[in-house]
């Protein structure tokens, strides 16, 4: 049995408050210290909400819309890396490719709202430094028959710091 303390004691409440502030302060200070200087790796910083919004609005959404429209010029501008290699001749030498894309993607419906996509981008994308970044985002789609479909897009920044879609995988499962 320990000594009984009155819970409403002003002194106790003040002490607890100050202790809370102190612990919070020290926790923030040293927690940050350990994270950044002690054990941090200096890589993998997630995107800010603003950056994620820009990636979604400038790259992810336009890319999906370009697929739906068969807009091969836009697709070409939005892709990079291996995807440019895979699609290079299709986009530039195959006059039927726009139809192919349209037929395949036109009736697919994007089920994610912009805010959901921003959140996914914040979780899935990261910056390596000021200009380099990479990440994945999974779009929830619905086919014309109502069945779900998932589109996983991988993106990286190019040498100028611009985000490009570098890979795409499609599937009925994740």
């Amino acid at each position, binding site marked *: 049995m320990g000594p009984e303390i009155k819970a409403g004691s002003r002194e106790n409440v*003040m*002490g607890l408050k100050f202790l809370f502030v102190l612990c919070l302060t020290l926790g923030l200070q040293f927690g940050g210290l350990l994270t950044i*200087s002690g054990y941090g790796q200096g890589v993998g910083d997630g995107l800010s909400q603003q950056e994620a919004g820009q990636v979604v609005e400038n790259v992810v959404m336009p890319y999906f819309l370009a697929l739906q429209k068969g807009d091969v010029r836009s697709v070409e501008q939005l892709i990079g890396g291996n995807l440019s290699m*895979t*699609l290079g001749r299709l986009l530039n030498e195959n006059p039927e*490719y726009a139809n192919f894309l349209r037929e395949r993607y036109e009736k697919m419906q994007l089920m994610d709202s912009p805010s959901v996509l921003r959140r996914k981008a914040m979780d899935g994308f990261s910056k390596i430094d000021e200009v380099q970044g990479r990440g994945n985002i999974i779009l929830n789609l619905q086919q014309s028959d109502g069945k779900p479909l998932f589109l996983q897009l991988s993106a990286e920044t190019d040498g100028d710091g611009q985000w490009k879609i570098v890979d795409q995988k499609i599937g009925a499962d994740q």
Partner: protein
Amino acid sequence: MIQSKRWSSCFPAKFFPYIFLIFIFSTFLLSVQTIWAQTPPLIPQNNFTKYWVDSEELVAENSPGEKAFDGDPLTHWHTQWLNASPPHPHSLQIDLGAVYSIGGIRYKPRDPSGGANGRIGQYELYVAADSGTPPTIPPIFGQWTLVASGSFPNTATEQEVLFNTVSSRYIWLRALSEAQNKNRPWTTVGEFNVLGTLVTEQVVISPSSAEVSPGGQQQFTGSGGTPPYAFIILDDTSGGASIDFNTGLYTAGPNAGTSTIRMADSTVPELSAQATVTVTEPSSGTFSPIPQNNFTKYWVDSEELVAENSPGEKAFDGDPLTHWHTQWLNASPPHPHSLQIDLGAVYSIGGIRYKPRDPSGGANGRIGQYELYVAADSGTPPTIPPVFGQWTLVASGSFPNTATEQEVLFNTVSSRYIWLRALSEAQNKNRPWTTVGEFNVLGTSVGGGGSNLGISPSMVTLAIGAQQTFEGMNGTPPYVYSLVGDTSGGATVNSSTGLYTAGPIAGTSTVRVTDAGSHTADANITVTAEATFLNKGGWTVHFVNSQTSGNPATAAFDGNPATSWRTTGTVSPPHDLQINLGNVFEIEGFQLSPLTPYGAEGISFYEFYVSKDGVNWGMPVASGDFANDTSLKTRTFPRITGQFVRIIARGAFHGRRSINLAELDVIGAPFTGNHDPDGSITAPTGNLTINAGGSVSFAGTYSDPNGDPPGSFLWNFGDPAIPDATVKDPGQITFNNPGTYTVTFTVSDSLGRQDPFPAKVVIKVLDGPNTVLPRGEWRIHYVNSEEVIQHNDAAVNVLDGNSSTLWHSQWNNVEGPHDIQINLGSVYSLDALRYLPRPSGQNGRIKRFHIYVSEDGHNWGQPVAIGDFVNSSAEQRVQFSPKAGQFVRVAALSEVNNKQWASMAELNLEGRCRNPSVKIHDPLTKDVQSGPNLKVAASVCLTHPLHAGWGVKVAIDGGGQQQTILMPADGIIRADTFLWTFSGIVGDNHEVEAFIVDQSGNAVPGSTTYDKVTHVGIGGVYGALGDSITVGIGDDDPTDGTSQDGRNTNTETGFIPLLNDLLTAKQGFPHNIYNEGVQGETSAGLLIRAPGFLKKRPKAKVFLILVGTNDASSGLVPSGAGSDPPAAGTYKDNLQKVIDLIRDPSMGREVYLAKVPFSLSPAKDDDIQGYNQAIEELVASNGIPLIPPDFYSHFQSHQSELIDNVSHPNGAGFRSMSTLWCVAITSGVCDGP
């Protein structure tokens, strides 16, 4: 409640101001920490050594731990994967070479072109807690401090971890998991760097340990502190090791033993470091085990004969399954235990082998500490039980706790009896037993008794009236001793006991022993006067490093204790005084008088040397500390002959710089023996540098203080190709071989006494001026990427002599590092590379480079040079240590503007062809060629006109077929000069040998004039192109990862090794299948990469293609099925173009297609079926003579053989694939493996 009480009582409101102060202070700490978190610089890797690693793959690939810090990110450390795959955690411990203040690391995962296996996920980083003591191996956690832990992402990008700085010399990277999250057991590291700064208040000697042969040399260097460093020998058991005080060049003594080196900072001698040298005798190759069948047990202290029949004889019964065991049933007598063996005859013994008991019976009684003795007098059987005085200790040490046979070598000694004395048990469990499985003695017979008669000691120096007992050995007793010469005024010797008594004056004596066979042996005795303080009248200062005008060095021997030698206050110890005594003496001590009244400048730590010539000082005859008082300091040591003495004051008391020495006396006696003769070199007058083929005239002089005439002269010219000369003036000597040679001139007097310090001169023989090699026969051996579509930037442009044409890597889609390799056509000794960057524009100008030289174009070893080119259009020259090779590789790791390209206008090399050599570079061992012809190519170095008429003979299977190609008359070896084609070679494995032959067709002896490759197959050569399925991803059966012939091995195993086995068994001849699968490969990617694959695998005649799974995964690639010609960029179109590339009519290649496997993901099924329809159309339209193996149908009906929806098979699935491929290729039945 208790917690509330604690909080409230600890932090009442009245403490708020203090809490506020804590807050402020914590903020301050954070700011300080931020400053400390500045990234420290990289610690140079070139001093790193692997301290411990838990696992390495050394069979399937050469990936030891060292690859993690070789500066080459294209190589890596890989834990074992071929014969076993030990699980996590994996550890790599690195000795940084010195103590550093460490603040972080950088981890570069393996080069991604080789895959992502082994990328580290969770990690821990430790440093050794005590930098002064090397940590225990295997590691004990208590000796290490955890400084960081976390998880690395699954990326090929270099990762940096920073932590609070800590001083240590050792760092430990501990990988707990793999980043891929696939539960794979491996760890790989491309590069591992440590961030920190040298702790300058430490000095480090490098290497800290070394092993040399008797008489061998080792260069020691220092770091840290303030150079220069002083090197001395603290301790030596090798019989006279020496080290250059200033340069650190160590020379071992003539015997096995150890030396301890101490290196001190020149300004702060208290800063010192030590190194150890192990001087090991040459291997036991000159000795063989003495036959055990003549051995008899001479004496044993204990045997177990009740519980088991294990007498001492079992130790030499030739059966390692039996053993000698000391008693254990009724009693267990404690250590030591002894086994003495009579060898049956006198042998010259140089070592033993101890085989512990068979481990199936346990480890009890394994010997730990041991001693080995031989009987000192072979003529008389030793006393039983043993008397130590009758035995000579020849070796001692500790055996490890292992069942492996141990070998101990020692200086050869003649004896008939040997004694193994076990002092402890290796298990360290305080058990009292000793066991021996087998005991062998290494030695050679010395023939019948008498002819090897000796006397011990054979040479000795004694004081007037002193006594010495001489003993005959290796003869036939009884021995009779007599005095056959004496100038000491009446020496005597007892004829039966050998006790000699010196006469009353200095002189010499000779004692002779005669055995029963009338053989004789003599011992020489030098009788010297009794030691006294030497007269200092003729002494002079030979050298002193520091003195003051009022206290010169001469005051140290002026006989006046009131005057003293004092060094200046501006020079720190060590202080060095060398004195010429004027004559040769037998010296046995010295006495030092501190200044009185006593100051604070006494010598604290000293070394004392004696030298005959004042140049060669050897090791100290005495060293140690003096008491901090005014007492006389007297030190004695065994007599040593010399004319010069030297005292080095390593430190002064109280950290003072100056030392003060009032008087130094030397204790000794006049030398009355035979003085050393002295030889000197008069021509050349100093060291010389000449070109190969040049001559030098040599001449010498001889002198002897006794006036003895010369007995012999010996010139050794350093180059084994030049025979020794035995005349005083050998005249012109020609040096043909480049190198640095120390020429020694050794003289002996007519009594056989040899100059202990032969005269030396160094001749450096150069190859001649650097030569820029002609490039007429050079070829591009390999390039990873070249732009030939959008512009003619082919790799060959670097050899065209036109600086306006370039090699440029592909403009699009191919990232670095880039790699260009040149075949020079023949072997050169290369020592410099010249890189001419593109003249205009900066794209692709190489920044970070690695340069490699290889004999065969396959094994590149370590880079010969690593560095950064500057961003300039000017030619840049990289000099490196000469290395012989026919192939040169430049790895371009980065670009001056950090872009993805590499470019080069011209590449030149400097070097020369030197010693005759031949190296088969095609085929290599285990290569396979498509029969029936066997083509052989060799790298050859022959020099015109020196080797005119010489050539190379190649023989197949021991000479069944052989052909010789001679060096062309013009002396120019071209890329196609040494190519042989042997026809009619049957499909099987063969052996290929190459010999350099002279004008007469005789093989030229030498280490470089012969080469051999084995298991060269004539059979089927395939290339497998595809995606991760071809790579083998998903195979969960590691047991079939290597083909039975060892040719095909695969990290991910997969179907290729299995297919090799099936085809080899089915067709009856060897096969080789190159795995060129690329993870994520698509049909478009294959089309881009196919030219590179075809160039890389010129021997492959059949290509197996399996691609489409990733095309389908993307949902972006139309099949093109049903249209002919197919639309551009479709799956069918891409494959058609790949088929056209492979089926180049001039190359004789064939292509086989396989159907895309069924996928568990229905979203891909339509595309896959479309691709498979396209495949059927391609097979028909191209007339491909193989029905595609139908992996779609197979996996559709065997879905249990797939592991995921990317169509990756499991082990069973890959077995099925190999069978389906085999059935398709052979049109028959293939038995599953």
